[in-house]
């Protein structure tokens, strides 16, 4: 079987995110798909899944037969199957049930489930991947890679082996490094019998290790498809980065390094981190970069004492030890935190903008427990003016505001405290491009006015370029490289996150 995509384009309200992309996935091939955030990678996958309709002129064939993109493949009997990053498994149920939830249960004539055959079926499907998994314990008790195997088995339920395409979207995102090899052997086993696999990943070393050919997307353009044994990671990174106009806008902050650091961390280790030390001085903006699973998602939570799983190491703020897993203690010591998942971890729905803005400070605006309404209103008015929240209606429920305005309110919530350190995780996730600058401006102004020390962990390298004096690049749980001043450049950061040398880019950058 062959999956052929031709001239696939997509624009969202005038903004082109995919431009005339041609990709061919051959039988028995693992086809890697790489690109930075915003390269059009996930749009392409979503078009294939029927979630988005592509622009007219986009064409697709499976096994020589034309099919319509933008419709759900399974509804037309096409064997294009998907395993998404979150896996969509029911962790409370065992492998037998999870597989059956995808492919249906084997029933006796009476309509009763034939558990024996159902178990056999599951067993056999997993055996194929050499996975000796307990199929009758809840998935929550399995290793992450074993859960991925179950998700793959479920996705493949009932497909015609030779005419299928399996799409894996960031399958290594939640896997520890030690389990990546096991995933790769599963993927190779799937492709063995002429099925095609599309393998999407941020991690270039991961892609190079498993793929036969690799397609690189950048800003909606296909940069080319390369045989995996003919490119190295450095060249791929350069293709992803391209020749970018650097919009370096940071600077102007002059951290005072003669004084003691306001934050020090020693020997931080958790689920992903494996020993990180860092120091932060007042007036300094430090970025944290790294691919998924590098520890970049974990570090800001630990620094803000907002991490509720076991950690090692110590964080001190202004010389005082910060106890772990206590947002309240962090607040008391002057650490403000904006978490990564705004809707789940920050916005209190259906609270109004006012209530959301003052929730961390409201206990400091009260006498005998009674909130001073006037003082609260004044504070909210002050921040609405200062950070320009639109619409300027404090009694409107916060979830009704745009992502950018929600984020401004969450920033104001934290900035209204007496702060020494501000920790931000994914500060512009779900914030549209126009509002992004506004968010940056709020942070710049506060740093300059109050000499705050700021940590910004972001998967969007644009955030780091725009704001940071110094960027720490994490790789496999450790600080792989520290970039400072003029070294804080897009290409340098991408190369460092992938573990390659920026030097490789010199030649490739000139040849698109």
């Amino acid at each position, binding site marked *: 079987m062959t999956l052929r995509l031709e001239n696939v384009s997509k624009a969202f309200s005038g903004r082109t995110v995919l431009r005339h992309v041609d990709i061919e996935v051959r039988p028995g091939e693992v086809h890697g798909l790489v690109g930075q955030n915003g390269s059009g990678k996930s749009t392409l996958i979503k078009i294939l899944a029927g979630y988005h309709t592509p622009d007219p002129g986009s064409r697709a064939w499976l096994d020589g037969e034309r099919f319509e993109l933008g419709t759900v493949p399974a509804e037309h009997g096409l064997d294009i199957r998907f395993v998404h990053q979150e896996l969509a498994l029911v962790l409370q149920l065992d492998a037998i049930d999870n597989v059956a939830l995808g492919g249906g249960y084997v029933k006796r004539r009476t309509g009763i489930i034939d558990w024996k055959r159902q178990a056999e079926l599951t067993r056999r499907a997993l055996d194929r991947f050499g996975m000796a998994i307990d199929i009758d314990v809840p998935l929550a008790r399995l290793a992450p890679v074993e859960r991925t195997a179950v998700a793959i088995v479920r996705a493949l339920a009932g497909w015609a082996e030779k005419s299928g395409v399996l799409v894996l979207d960031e399958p290594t995102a939640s896997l520890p490094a030690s389990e990546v090899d096991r995933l790769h052997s599963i993927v190779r086993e799937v492709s063995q019998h002429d099925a095609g696999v599309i393998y999407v990943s941020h991690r270039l070393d991961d892609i190079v290790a498993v793929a036969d050919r690799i397609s690189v997307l950048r800003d909606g353009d296909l940069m080319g498809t390369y045989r995996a044994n003919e490119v190295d990671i450095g060249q791929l990174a350069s293709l992803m980065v391209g020749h970018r106009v650097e919009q370096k806008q940071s600077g102007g902050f002059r951290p005072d390094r003669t004084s003691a650091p306001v934050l020090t961390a020693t020997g931080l280790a958790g689920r992903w981190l494996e020993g990180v030390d860092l120091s932060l001085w007042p007036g300094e903006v430090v970025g944290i970069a790294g691919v998924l699973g590098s520890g970049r998602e974990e570090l800001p939570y630990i620094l803000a004492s907002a991490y509720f799983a076991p950690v090692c190491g110590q964080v001190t703020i202004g010389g005082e030890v910060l106890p772990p897993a206590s947002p309240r203690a962090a607040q008391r010591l002057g650490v403000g935190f904006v978490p990564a998942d705004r809707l789940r971890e920050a916005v209190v729905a259906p609270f109004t903008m006012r209530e959301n803005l003052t*929730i961390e400070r409201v206990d400091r605006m009260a006498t005998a427990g009674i909130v001073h309404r006037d003082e609260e209103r004044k504070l909210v008015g002050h921040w609405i003016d200062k950070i320009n929240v639109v619409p300027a209606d404090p009694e409107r429920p916060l979830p009704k505001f745009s992502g950018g305005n929600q984020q401004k309110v969450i920033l104001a919530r934290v900035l209204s405290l007496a702060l020494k350190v501000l920790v931000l995780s994914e500060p512009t996730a779900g914030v549209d491009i126009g509002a992004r600058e506004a968010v940056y401006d709020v942070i710049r102004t506060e740093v300059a006015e109050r000499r705050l020390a700021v940590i910004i962990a972001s998967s969007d390298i644009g955030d780091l370029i725009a704001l940071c004096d110094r960027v720490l690049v994490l790789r496999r749980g450790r600080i792989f490289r520290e970039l400072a001043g003029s070294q804080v450049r897009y290409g340098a950061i991408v190369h460092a996150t992938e573990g390659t040398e920026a030097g490789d880019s010199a030649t490739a950058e000139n040849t698109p």
Partner: protein
Amino acid sequence: MTGISLEVRRAGLGWASFKNIGAIYVWLLLIAIFSIWVPSTFPVYATVKQILNEDAITGLVALALVLPLAAGVFDLSIGYNLGFCNVLCAWLLVSGGLSVPLTLVITVAAALLIGVLNAVVVVVAKIDSFIGTLATGFLLLAAITVVAGQTEIVGPKLSSGFFGGIANSGIAGIDYSVVYMVVVAAIIWVVLEFTVAGRWFYAAGFNPDAARLAGIPVKRLRFIVLLVSALVAGGVAGIAVTSQIASGTATVGPPYLLNAFAAAFLGATQLKRGRFNAWGTLIAVLMLGTGTVGLGLAGAPDWASSVFTGVVLLLALAVTRAERSGSLG
């Protein structure tokens, strides 16, 4: 400036809308219907007294639920707590021969102890509150049977003197228990509307993860609300019901549970939509009570009032849901 003018406009138009105080309109409609249906017995002062006096205990139990529900915790033990405090209070006075003040102190202490038990189960042992308080409810049911047995505890000390007057014969035929209900509602209103704790209760209920990351002591708040619900249901409603019916009976407590939850949920669709609140709960109790009493006076069969309560609850939540999805889309 824009913010303030919008606020004023909303305050000016919004409060009387059907979606804000729908239950009051339904209540008025009910009063009109029953006044026409049974003109001789419904629109008279005796009926007003009957509705208020009969619903005071339900109102107190429903109010006991407001803070836990606001903070995202279920307390399914309140009916049994009320029942236990009823039989305990009667037993202490009649069989134990204790003085009234001592009886009151011990009963209130017992109610609080039940609250501590619930809080330990839910907050410390981290057992889901729905299941945890269901379980403690069963334990209380056992305790009720141990104290009261199969017989009713009755005696002159329950029906006369100071104790007999605790819940009955107030002003103009309205029982004191009605006064307690209004006072408790006012206290809960002040807490939820004007205090830091109130703001935090709601935050902990709406988004516990965000509340915890914002430094709000979610666990402590949940501990407190379970103490409050136990105190109001057992300490206040439990004693009031004992004085009202002048007996300790094993079957008194449990039936209050369903009515109280119905009123609290219906109340959350009123006044401050989507938020459990005191006055909304009170309006719901009285509206449902009016329907029940009215149906009784009109000679409707016994099951009619339950049908009425169920239908009203379903309609209220359906209307709220339809509005919410409409406003988002």
